[in-house]
């Protein structure tokens, strides 16, 4: 194989994704942010409109900046099982699994989804860069790790009419797909019934050269189904309602922490059920066994807070005097009609002790700061959940 010539220079701007031309036409506010070094839309025109399209119609979002790694080879299953806390052997070919992975001390490095593409082939999607970590986990094993972040571009099609859009685009084959199914629906086009919104939705992956045709196909098919582009702001609200964590926001990925004690176990993040101690050794198993026996030090919980002012960055108090934690994400939920938040509380608060919690909310109104102490109730279920998201075959809307 010829060695590719080293390029002479790099792009100094945020990099456009393969969909950028299409996004730019629709981004009336010209409102962009960086996502993994790529240009990503914050808002196209109105984040409220975009949010309601997620819950009411269909939306398209460019998720190409997600980190994507392919793990392929005879030892791929062993590598993945060494990496993550759940048992990948229980995930069949053609299925997608939500996963967390930990360091030796049982602290969460990142979370993401793992696509089982074949017996010995996986695609890992996550928020943080894992190339070196995957290589280290694969050291001595027989498998190839490739970074496909730029080799695959991706769109997320989310909302109650998402399936109708697929159907109108000639992809009605997706009808039989259950949540967390994935398949190559056409040569060069992979689809999965996954998403970050808690609504009916699909994610589609293709090579960058097919980006425009994929966008145009879905966009024109979606016209009669209310399709709308969405930016990060709307997505963030949808993911919070449905209870998805944002790494770096709701927990500190341990590899990126300078300070001791900032790492959290999957138990502390509310995902203890993912940890499978029966599958044999995996990274962090021994430490996680100890953590499980000792009990969590923290609880990442969902809070339902009285009033309507979002409790962003609020301290959480117990009985008015003792600070027991802080809010990590907060919003008014337009669909659940509740004032919702994720908060990290020191054990036993949020665990055995769930009463007497208050959020100290600072509200800025026209030159003045108001402080409000609002009752906060720990809730176990996601703030918003709907049956249409799980129904197979999906309804038209």
């Amino acid at each position, binding site marked *: 194989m010829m060695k590719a010539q*080293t*390029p*002479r*220079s*790099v*792009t*100094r701007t*945020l*990099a456009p994704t393969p969909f950028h031309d299409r996004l730019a036409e629709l981004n009336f506010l010209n409102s962009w942010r*960086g996502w*993994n*070094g790529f240009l990503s839309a914050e808002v196209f025109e109105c984040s409220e409109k975009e949010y309601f399209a997620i819950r009411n119609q269909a939306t398209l979002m460019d998720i190409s900046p997600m980190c994507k790694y392919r793990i392929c080879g005879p030892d791929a299953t062993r590598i993945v099982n060494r990496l993550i806390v759940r048992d990948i052997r229980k995930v069949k070919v053609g299925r997608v699994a939500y996963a967390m992975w930990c360091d030796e001390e049982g602290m969460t490095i990142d979370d993401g989804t793992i696509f089982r593409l074949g017996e010995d082939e996986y695609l890992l999607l996550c928020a943080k*860069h*894992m*190339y*070196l*970590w995957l*290589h280290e986990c694969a050291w001595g094993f027989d498998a190839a790790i490739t*970074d496909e972040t730029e080799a695959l571009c991706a769109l997320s099609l989310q909302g109650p009419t998402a399936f109708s859009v697929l159907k109108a685009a000639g992809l009605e084959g997706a009808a039989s797909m259950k949540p967390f199914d994935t398949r190559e629906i056409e040569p060069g086009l992979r689809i999965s019934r996954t998403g970050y919104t808690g609504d009916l939705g699909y994610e589609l992956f293709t090579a960058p050269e097919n980006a425009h045709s994929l966008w145009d196909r879905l966009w024109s098919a979606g016209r009669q189904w209310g399709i709308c582009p969405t930016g990060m702001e709307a997505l963030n609200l949808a993911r919070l309602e449905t209870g998805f964590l944002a790494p770096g926001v709701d927990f500190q990925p341990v*590899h*990126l922490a*300078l*300070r*001791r*004690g900032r790492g959290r176990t999957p138990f502390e993040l509310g995902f203890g059920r993912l940890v499978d101690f029966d599958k044999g050794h995996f990274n962090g198993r021994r430490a996680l066994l100890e953590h499980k026996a000792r009990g969590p030090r923290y609880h990442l919980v969902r809070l339902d807070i009285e009033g309507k002012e979002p409790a962003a960055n609020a301290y959480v108090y117990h009985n008015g005097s003792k600070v027991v934690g802080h809010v990590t994400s907060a919003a008014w939920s337009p669909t659940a009609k509740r004032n919702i938040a994720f908060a990290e509380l020191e054990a036993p608060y949020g665990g055995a002790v769930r009463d007497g919690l208050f959020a100290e909310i600072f509200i800025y109104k026209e030159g003045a700061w108001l402080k409000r102490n609002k009752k906060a109730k720990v809730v176990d279920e996601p703030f918003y959940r709907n049956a249409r998201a799980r129904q197979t075959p999906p309804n038209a809307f």
Partner: protein
Amino acid sequence: MDKQDSYDAIVVGAGHNGLTAACYLAKAGLKTLIVEKNEQIGGAAVSTEMYKGWIYSNCSYVCSLLRQEIIRDLELPKFGLQVVPYRGRVTFSDKGEYLASYDDAHVKRREVGRISPIDVDAYDRYYQLVMRQCRFIRPFLLRRAPDPTSMKPRDVGELMFLIKRIYDIGPRDVGEMIRFWTMSIGDFLDEHFEHELVKASMAGSGIIGTGLGVYSPGTAYVLLHHYMGDVDGSMGAWGFARGAMGAVTKALGAAFESAGGVIKTGSGLSEFIIENEKVRGVALENGDEYRAPIVASNLDVKRTILKHIGREKLPPEYVRAVERFKIRGSSGKLNLALDKMPSFPLLPENGDYFTGDFSCNTSLETLERAYDDWKEGRWSAKPYFDMLIPSKIDPTLAPPGSHMMSLFIQYAPYDLNVNGVRSADNWNDETRKAFADAVFDRIEVCCPDIRQRVLHAEVRSPADIEREVGLTEGNIFQGELTFDQLLFNRPIPGYAQYSTPIDGLYIVGSSTHPGGGVMAAPGANAAREILRRNGKGDLMPALAEEEI
């Protein structure tokens, strides 16, 4: 002309540490005098117009370690100090490759990935590791080094602080810490990275100012020492003092004078006046004498003890330890007045973006070979340089359109070997020119037209730096920053708290904890110790800030 005056305290040497110590003594109400051998104050932090219209930072050339707490406490901005961060460094290889560093984390990742994809995440991880170690060390900079053999409450307190910091970084990073303090930078980089240029681009910080090679144990710490500074809280960032490095010492001098201090320049120290193991003042070369019960020496420990005090006045063990102190000359300087910006044909847009350091070192091996030359008493055939063009962002240094270029060069020996004879006297116009030629040859790797751009060049060997500034062997740190000479071993075990066997005589320069660089921490720490020993410790504010 014989003069006799009395002061509460005398500081010998107007380098940045002497000035800092003097500021704190004067602010505590002591009638304080600074004596300086050169006509201008500043020591190794000076700005000089050696060619009309071009200002050089003759010795120290960049600013990061200068403790923000001191800048703020002494109100140096009020006295004209402005530190401007610079960004973007580039390393060139002989193979025509380059590796740049960009501000934005993602652009930086792309750049490393351009030449070595596997090193991209490795860089992030390595940087985290270095930053954790820096966070560990930084709180010690403005504290007295503990004396592990003392049971005095303050020393026990300092040891407890050390233990608490060790607890805070956790068992894994304590292991890394011990490695960092003892390993070579070469071994360390080899553990993390694959691409030679990636490694070479980071290795320079491990050897700067040090008579060691990239594979010599101890050099990993030297790298930390270069990363633990900050500009406005951005750890590891470096900046220029607007108006060149003299701006730092000019501001310190002005702060000192506004606190009522007196500066006398133009005559060097002849000797410390000592009676019955107690210092009484100083005698200058011009015959002037000044009396004070406290004398603080900004000279390095070797010069202070071996050149200006009769040996009979000192314990032999102590003198022996001072003689043993490693303070070897390993670097030179080249300051250039350029008619216009030299070209950087290897760089995109001719390198317009880059305002940081340029260097040219292909691999760790080339750096190690450069060290081999030094061991034999020769300057490196392919010297390492750290090259900056501060006039790219500082408009005060050169006429518009033209530029001032500063190069720190390593390795160059103090006692140059010519025909088998090693002597500092071998440095003369001829050898200096040959040394500069070796450097120009290397600059041509990145700037082929450099020789055509030069209007004036100032070439300084270690021997020149010793003669002009006073630093023994021209060592920029007043003693190498290796673990055997740090913390409670700096400069001399048992004398790490700025004192000497002579009552009232203190050492306040970079020979003392926490060491070299334009940091001002030794001067401030020493002033506190002096005031404390004289019952005035509470007249100086605590400077060490909490590391959050």
